[in-house]
């Protein structure tokens, strides 16, 4: 994807986990005005962290251009609820919602809902099932299902609503389940929300690459990140790729290295240094990846430096695409309109019936 779109530039996402509920409005507005294309909301099991999807929803009416993308777990949550909540996020953000589908593998998450822990390949199976349920439910209302036809008294056209009749596959590792449908909310504004997942969850025998719109790619060091992006692209083909990068910047007279908290190791590449150094790294990364997601060490501190020094220079160099203006997250990712599986089959059936 990036090879043909280099001129358009890449996009930048920022993880807002550091913004608590009290400073959320300020943080998301700062990220939008700095020119970030995407704000992500980690579902961190840390004290003081409110529900990621609700933080994204709160940011919806406050913002206009930035895509709002929460992490939502697929293993211990109800797929029907997730699908409805994400569709609603799309409504409250005017079509700027996405979903980072995660697969929780912590014993704490399992204990909280009284289930046995899911591990190994079963995690990807759970994720794949939840994504499939979500996507079928989003399609379960055709776009023009609400007809409000006064003459016949019909608010909806029942032929344009579909039972999703999902069943977990026969080889499903966890307890089998089914979901009936249709959704309780009309199709989201984007039709289908873009779904993102860690590259480690995606591939043969895992979540199908067709089920996601973008993958999040991690490497142990900044030097290895571009190579990892190339490897993942070779493995998964034409799916949008987002490189993950922790960032600690020189700031307010303090060297980044002195601000580094070495106790934290999340397995992501970490850039530690000056704004100028980061500009060089991002410039080269954005030639390989479609976007980069930055994880600031201290949100307020890094966001200020990024906003003041890094993004303006990247824009000047043409490394960044223009911010979305009243666009959808799908448009930003360049994934095109989402065809409805049911309307296609309905049309085909009708055609065959003739």
């Amino acid at each position: 994807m990036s090879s043909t779109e280099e001129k358009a530039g890449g996009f930048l996402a920022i993880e807002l986990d550091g913004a608590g509920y009290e400073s959320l409005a300020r943080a998301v507005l700062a990220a939008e005005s700095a020119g970030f294309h995407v704000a992500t909301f980690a579902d961190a099991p840390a004290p003081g962290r409110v529900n990621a999807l609700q933080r994204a929803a709160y940011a919806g009416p406050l913002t206009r251009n930035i895509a709002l993308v929460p992490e939502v777990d697929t293993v211990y949550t109800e797929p029907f609820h997730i699908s409805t909540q994400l569709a609603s996020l799309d409504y409250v953000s005017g079509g700027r919602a996405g979903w980072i589908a995660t697969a929780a593998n912590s014993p704490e998450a399992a204990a909280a809902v009284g289930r046995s822990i899911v591990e190994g390949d079963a995690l990807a199976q759970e994720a794949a099932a939840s994504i499939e349920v979500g996507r079928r439910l989003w399609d379960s209302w055709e776009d023009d299902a609400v007809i409000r036809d006064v003459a016949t008294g019909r608010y909806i056209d029942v032929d344009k609503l579909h039972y999703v009749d999902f069943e977990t596959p026969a080889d499903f590792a966890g307890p089998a389940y089914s979901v009936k449908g249709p959704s309780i909310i009309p199709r989201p504004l984007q039709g289908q929300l873009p779904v993102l997942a860690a590259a480690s969850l995606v591939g043969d025998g895992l979540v199908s690459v067709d089920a996601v719109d973008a993958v999040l790619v991690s490497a142990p060091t900044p030097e290895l990140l571009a190579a990892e992006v190339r490897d993942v692209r070779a493995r998964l083909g034409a799916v949008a790729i987002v490189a993950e990068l922790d960032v600690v910047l020189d700031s307010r007279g303090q060297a980044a290295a002195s601000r580094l908290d070495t106790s934290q190791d999340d397995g992501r590449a970490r850039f530690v240094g000056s704004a100028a150094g980061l500009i060089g790294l991002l410039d080269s990364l954005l030639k390989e990846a479609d976007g980069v997601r930055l994880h600031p060490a201290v949100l307020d501190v890094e966001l200020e430096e990024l906003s003041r020094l890094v993004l303006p220079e990247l824009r000047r160099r043409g490394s960044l695409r223009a911010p979305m203006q009243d666009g959808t997250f799908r448009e930003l990712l360049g994934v095109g309109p989402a065809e409805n599986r049911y309307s296609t089959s309905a049309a085909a059936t009708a055609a065959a019936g003739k």
Partner: protein
Amino acid sequence: MTQHNRAIFQPSGQIQFGIFFQGVNSGTIWKASESGSQTDFESFRHIVQTAERGKFAAFFLGEGLRLREHLGRPHALDVVGRPDAQTMLAALAAVTTNIGLVATQNTTYNDPADLAHRLSSLDLISGGRAAWNVVTTDNAWTGANFRRGGYLDHADRYKHAEAFVETAKRIWDSWETSSGPARRVLHEGQHYTVDVSPRLPRSAQYRPVLFQAGDSPEGRDFAARQADVIFSAHPKFDDAVEFRRDIVARSVAAGRGANAVQIMPASEFILAATDQEAQEKKAWVRSLQIGPQQAIAYLEQFWGRELTEYDPDGPLPEIDPVVEETSETRGSGFHGAKARQLADQWRAEAKDKGFSIRQFVTSRTARVDATFTGSYTAVADHLAEFARVGAVDGFNISPWLIPTGLDDIVNHLVPELQERGVYPTEYRGTTLRENLGLETPVRSPERVGA
């Protein structure tokens, strides 16, 4: 206050309003040119900001867990399809400052730790304005959308709901101070086990306010033990006074104060400058709520068969219901042998009153007991009487028009009530608990910890 005083109910002399945006029903008119979208954010923004301008205490959203059906297919005639309650309320928190945000959420198809966390999230994001309208469902038809399926017996639903609410309260109580530490919360029940270290501190209002709407003796006792506000079905004056007496007795028996549980009945307002105009408006509203197709469809739900050959302006069908195919899973409430008995009864009633199908269905479905119709001044006088005796603490208004359905209430009725001194002119505070005049819960040590 002494124990003696706490056992005697004291009217506040005030009423307050909430709005219930149901999202799915036959009461919301969609056929008029003024009817807007049921899902666009702008509809929600308009109505919640109008309510806040009118100093409403709370904005309620209903919950959907499975799409309504009619004769085995999605129901085509009435408003259907709505956003998730908490997601919408989190967004509305960003565009409001004082109004309470109430999410109807089911105890059967949610997990307690997850729901408690999400309600806490809404409470913190909104600065202490969240509430939970606790509802229970127990049927496999709804369960078909969820991993657990229909696992709960009808008889167990309040027992289950109460354990759920108790667990949620323990989760909300678990933080010692606003910075922690949190106590681990354990619950081992018949249906699930919870073992969680809560992540969130208490909010500005301590914890979300609890609303409950059960009306059976079990439901009333559950509310008297657990709820802050009962969303009742008793808005008529005498009925409301009797319901208040019953709830006061039950809450005192449950060891709570006589004023501990507030009452806000569901209601509908059809208002105009004069009583006569209001009556004309009511006829217009009813004709749009129950059109010819809705009237037939209503009977079809109970007859369990198509009745499209019948004239909506003619008498009720002589044909008998298909009893074996009706099922409680459709939520119609009548099934089996009862259907035939019911049909006989309805035919007799319609004949007796000289009602056509449409007139009969209108008489059954309109919120006959829950509608206040009249001039702004007459309705204000009537509501002032409720306030004087403390029959209710307020009304939960279901608007029949979205998004402008509160405009006349806020522009004309609210000022009349304010002039009479029975309605707030300002919000008392920024939390829902403050605005409702509820006491801050006490963190009871015996409920905390493992």
